[in-house]
């Protein structure tokens, strides 16, 4: 399969982007996937084709008479036990319906794509957790946190002038610089796993320091 041309921005990271795309892991579908899909499609087609051709069954002409007679019987004083008259048309209709159901269920079952056995089965008490929203390049909460810190330094000067607070703030500034430095490196040399690990460490540390600063302001 050929990859479509990449829409590239004006920032000139084209070679890196190309290399990153080349380095993306390739995933081959399981060998039997196509067979499974075609079997499923064939099954659906067979169903769609055969459904209109199914025979229709009209009730016998005397059905209404039977029904009326039955109603009359119900209205009349009930005998303790009465053998039910067999209605052959109803039996055959039921059988036909069951057959169609069985056929449909069988086709659907048989046509299912065969999946590898699931590796993990979550404990039944746990509801499925929706995925996190995609990570944004600039987290709006980052800015919100910084804004909060700025705004509260005016109303709580004694907190902001404390040694602990100043130290944390200096740490945050240093981490921001480090983050910027790593970002530049990643742009220049490509994001190797080692580099991303460092970035992750810095981002986790930055979030921790931000939480600690806000903790000082709100406690």
């Amino acid at each position, binding site marked *: 399969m050929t990859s479509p041309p990449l829409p590239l921005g004006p920032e000139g990271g084209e070679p890196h982007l190309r290399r990153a795309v080349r380095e993306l892991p390739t995933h081959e579908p399981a060998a039997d996937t196509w067979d499974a899909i075609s079997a499923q499609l064939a099954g659906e087609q067979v169903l769609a084709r055969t459904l209109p051709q199914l025979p229709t069954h009209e009730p016998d002409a005397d059905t209404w008479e039977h029904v009326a007679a039955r109603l009359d019987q119900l209205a009349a004083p009930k005998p303790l036990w009465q053998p039910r008259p067999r209605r052959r048309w109803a039996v055959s209709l039921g059988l036909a319906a069951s057959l169609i159901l069985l056929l449909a269920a069988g086709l659907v079952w048989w046509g299912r794509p065969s999946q590898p056995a699931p590796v993990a089965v979550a404990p039944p008490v746990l509801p499925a957790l929706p995925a996190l929203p995609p*990570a944004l390049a600039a987290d709006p909460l980052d800015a*919100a946190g910084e804004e909060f810190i700025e705004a509260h330094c005016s109303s709580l000067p004694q907190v902001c002038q404390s040694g602990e607070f100043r130290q944390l703030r200096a740490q945050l500034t240093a981490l921001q610089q480090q983050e910027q430095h790593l970002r530049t490196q990643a742009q220049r040399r490509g994001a190797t796993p080692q580099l991303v690990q460092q970035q992750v460490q810095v981002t986790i540390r930055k979030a921790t320091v931000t939480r600690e600063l806000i903790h000082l302001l709100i406690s």
Partner: protein
Amino acid sequence: MSSALLFRWLSGWRWLVLLALSLPAAAQIPAAPRKVQVITRTVAQTLPCPAGTVVRIRADRATVRVQGWSQPTLRVVLRLSARHPDRATAEKDLILAQYQISGEAGAIDLVNYVKLPAGTPAPTSDLRADYTIMMPAANALRVANAYGLTQLTGLTGAQKLTQDFGQVELRQLRGSLDATVRYADLTGTDLQLAFTCQAEKSALQLKSVGGGYAIRNRYGSIRLEPTAELTGIVIDAERTEISLLPPAQAQFSYQLRATHGRLSLPPEYPEPGGGRTSWQLAGPPRQPLIRIVTTYAPITLHSAAGALLSPR
């Protein structure tokens, strides 16, 4: 003439006294920061809270303490406060701090907010709310809070929590808790829960916890110390450090994977092999499964402290 001289002398002397008095005061101002003035307003209310009533708290910059009790009522004490170095400013800003306590059919709402009439500048005081709530333990609870502390204790119903910035403390909880936390420090002890958590840039620490846990986190950390009452853990994390300290006697099945991260196991477990980042251990059948996935950050499985002491 002499009286005028005397007056001048007196006035000069008086100025001297005033100057002498004001000197230490003037010297003190720059040395120590001005003390913060705190103005508060307190409301207390008790509302009927029969079974089936959902309690909804929408708090802002608040300390929210919710504790379960066995009475069919909800008791709330809400303290609103304004802090500012200037007392008049704090007093003026406290008026902007508003609250609402209402009980309708099937729900009790507790809300605090800042009311800003058009054209009014934003308050410069640090406005806070402090809720102390006692409610029937089994009733459903929904809490949203930001920039504050949320503390849930002794509840057994269906609980839902959203917290941006600040601390979350969970204690003695049963039932279920569905938490969404961002930039928060969440700690929990003595939980027997169906716990689901969506976290971002948050640190989660859960100690002596049983029940089932489904957790996501991004750019954060997770530390878990389950008990033998654990029924399962599924952590699907990104760029998040995870450490786990299983109890000494319990046996679990493990599936751990740290893509581009380091996997550390205690020496008594079979080694995953050099450079490998995933590890599986199938315990006896029907044992709780601990499934942990993360990227670019380490997973550490600690050795249970009691394991070495327990007789083999």
